[in-house]
């Protein structure tokens, strides 16, 4: 049975139903489909979707508590801000941007790779707790490829079977196949960014995207249409069947299967275990009428968002909770995030039309991501991609004003009027290493509507992240200046993590994967070391976060888990990796 029905739930449902299993998915939010819920007639509504959270998780029902460090009291996130959690069928897969990345081969060996190249201190300075994933890029490549084919990802390969290709990302790991569809045509601002980056000797390429450049039929027979660049993609559902989502790629096939059952408005409270705690018997869930049920299951797949999966492990007593004081325990360990900054670019003489956009409309350089550059003497590990990106020009959120402009009054209004068409933002999408003091556990004070402890997040950016982000923001500013604008504005990643401004919904860790039960919660097939008929999907498995959007890797890990379950687990249920 599946707990949660977004990307990983849909992928696992499809794969396991194809293997002939009877699959039940429990989703706490409502059913959603394109024609009813985000039709083009009303999808382009910034107030309703972005600011009134119409498709997002409602924190009135369920939120988490947050603090920057162990000495603070965690308080509830009373309103969504930094990250925009999903709910309902398709969940975040409905309102994501469609930015489809693979992590670098070296990202999977964060500890051993950096230690070898820069010495032991590089991975232990600043109380870092980075580790290797227990898997290689090459092992995961076929499953990245599978997700690209599902989505019809639009892009240009930079490395095909080890051969560097012009026009693509020369730093990426080898791909077995070209992207299923060609890259999107770049709008003005990304084009200017690409030209400037090339003049500086960087290697610009079009952002790989699940907003499709042309019509595509995927292996399940689902048809996607060409994107119309309406600029309402991230934080919105696509009314045009142009953005890859569970709805557009999997559900037409999966929902028609007689061995698949979906129950909506049903929230799983916990996984039930046998008295010896070595086997899950099913889950207890409650529906929107408040009725409680036990759903028996041979296999329980946690396919909710990372924050829910980790919380369910903690609430169910699966694995030992992490204690930052002793460093013992693993569930909740190595929570990480994404380190975001940006540079706003203002022109006098160029009309950029920022409202012509798409969720992944960008020209990107990857020269300073991961270990694509020499970190000697820099005092940090990790990096970021730098993107001249225009996802849209939604005016409540996306008006850029020059340095020193007040937030209101006539001067603000004039700055908005003068700069809206002539400015855009270069984004710096940085990695976030894991740290001894950053973790997830259960809150001692606050409870949700079911009476369960809320999840508590203890997180702050560390010295490693601040140094990385400053260095990368300076690299972005170089490209911005090379575009010869009137002026630029640097929005550095300064101070402590704040829950208020939107940053990104890329929460990672807490149910980390690894090569043995002493360093991880799940094995490389996302199977719990402690309770082998429980699998925990999603970015919770990341031991630290790379400088890319996580969905491609989340999906590849799910496909790999499904493959292994079909190939080996079903015949011989038990641990897929011997401890």
């Amino acid at each position: 049975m599946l707990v949660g029905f977004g990307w990983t739930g849909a992928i696992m449902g499809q794969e396991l139903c194809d293997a002939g299993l009877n699959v039940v998915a429990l989703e706490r939010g409502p059913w959603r489909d394109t024609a009813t819920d985000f039709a083009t007639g009303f999808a382009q509504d910034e107030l309703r979707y972005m600011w009134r959270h119409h498709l997002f998780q409602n924190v009135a029902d369920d939120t988490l508590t947050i603090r920057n460090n162990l000495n603070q009291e965690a308080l509830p996130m009373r309103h969504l801000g930094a990250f925009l959690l999903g709910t309902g069928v398709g969940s975040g897969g409905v309102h994501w941007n469609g930015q489809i990345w693979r992590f670098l081969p070296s990202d999977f060996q964060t500890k051993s790779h950096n230690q070898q190249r820069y010495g032991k201190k590089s991975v232990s300075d600043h109380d870092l707790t980075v580790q290797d994933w227990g898997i290689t890029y090459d092992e995961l490549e076929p499953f990245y490829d599978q997700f690209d084919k599902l989505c019809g990802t639009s892009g240009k390969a930079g490395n095909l079977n080890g051969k560097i290709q012009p026009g693509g990302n020369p730093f990426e790991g080898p791909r077995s196949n070209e992207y299923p569809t060609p890259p999107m045509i770049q709008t003005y601002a990304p084009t200017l960014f690409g030209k400037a980056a090339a003049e500086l000797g960087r290697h610009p390429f079009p952002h790989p995207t699940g907003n499709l450049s042309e019509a595509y039929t995927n292996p399940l027979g689902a048809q996607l249409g060409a994107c119309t660049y309406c600029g309402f993609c991230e934080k919105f559902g696509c009314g045009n069947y142009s953005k890859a989502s569970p709805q557009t790629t999997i559900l037409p096939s999966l929902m028609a299967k007689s061995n698949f059952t979906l129950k909506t408005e049903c929230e799983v409270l916990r996984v039930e275990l046998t008295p010896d705690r070595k086997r899950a018997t099913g889950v207890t869930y409650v529906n929107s009428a408040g009725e409680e049920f036990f759903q028996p299951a041979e296999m329980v797949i946690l396919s909710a968002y990372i924050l829910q999966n980790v919380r369910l492990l903690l609430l169910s007593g699966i694995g030992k909770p992490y204690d930052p004081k002793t460093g013992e325990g693993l569930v909740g360990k190595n929570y990480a995030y994404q380190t975001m900054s940006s540079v706003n670019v203002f022109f006098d003489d160029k009309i950029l039309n920022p409202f012509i956009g798409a969720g992944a409309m960008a020209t990107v350089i990857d020269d300073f991501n991961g270990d694509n550059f020499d970190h000697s003497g820099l005092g940090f590990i990790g990096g970021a991609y730098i993107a001249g990106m225009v996802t849209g020009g939604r005016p409540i959120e996306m008006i850029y004003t020059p340095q020193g402009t007040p937030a209101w009054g006539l001067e603000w209004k004039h700055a908005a009027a003068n700069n809206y068409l002539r400015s855009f933002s270069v984004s710096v999408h940085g990695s976030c290493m894991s740290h001894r003091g950053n973790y997830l556990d259960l809150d001692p004070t606050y409870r949700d509507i079911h009476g369960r402890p809320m999840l508590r997040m203890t997180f702050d950016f560390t010295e490693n992240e601040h140094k990385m982000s400053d260095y990368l923001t300076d690299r972005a500013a170089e490209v911005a200046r090379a575009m010869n604008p009137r002026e630029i504005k640097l929005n550095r990643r300064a101070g402590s993590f704040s829950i208020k401004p939107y940053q990104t919904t890329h929460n990672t860790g807490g149910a980390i994967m690894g090569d043995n039960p002493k360093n991880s919660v799940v094995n490389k097939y996302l199977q719990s070391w402690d309770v082998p008929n429980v699998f925990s999907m999603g970015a919770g498995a990341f031991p630290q976060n790379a400088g890319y959007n996580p969905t491609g890797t989340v999906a590849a890990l799910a496909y790999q888990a499904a493959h292994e379950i079909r190939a080996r687990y079903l015949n011989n249920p038990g641990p897929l990796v011997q401890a």
Partner: protein
Amino acid sequence: MSSEEKPDAKVHWDRRRFLIGGAIAGVGGMAAAAIHDGELGGPARTFRGSVPWQEGTADAPPGASGSGYIFFAPAEAAFIEAAVGRLIPNDEVGPGGLEAGVPFFLDRQLAGRFGRGDHYYLGGPWPKGTPEQGYQSRFSPAQLYRAAIAAIEKYMGANFNGGAFNKLAAEDQDKVLKGLESGEIKLDAGVDSKSFFEMLLQNTKEGYFSDPIYGGNKDMGAWKMIGFPGAHYNYKEWVPRHGERVTYPTVGLKGRPGWTET
């Protein structure tokens, strides 16, 4: 992989109490509100064998309707109209907040789900917290507006010769707004002046730039001022036309003036 759920799998009340046990004790905070916007609260549904889809249904947006204020009392409306007029003043470049209908927008927002705190967690306890922990108040947005406007007028009574906010000269109104923005003006009745200012400014920009169906952005004047053409579905022909001004007329979700005449 799982057996079908059987009717007898339903946990009876006694069993349920036993299962939840001590966890239910000491629950503070809110009971589930009856129906939320968007998610949670609809009936549980089971789907099997087909994509569920019903013709003639759509999750269309609820716009603002009527005229006059529902939420604001006259004195509150006087404050809001004056404040919004300073946050976004009117001139020949483009409409002010007042001219764009922002007070009416705010009224309908505060009278509805947003005002009730439909997407806010308001359960206790309620310590103040750090700036990084964001909104920390027991007030829903509607409660915060009501309490804050009263507290500001009370502050006015002891300052600026005791005049109401809307009677002040523009520069004095700006002084008060800056004092709220910085937190230098302290309000009583448990109102955090910075939190209120932040919400008022955000909601004012929402009313100014959101689709006209919500009651602000009158005649799409704010969109026309900046050059945003509105809710267009397809810009494909403009993608390669770098640097050109898009000539599409401005449209909202309900079209544009004159649309029905062509």
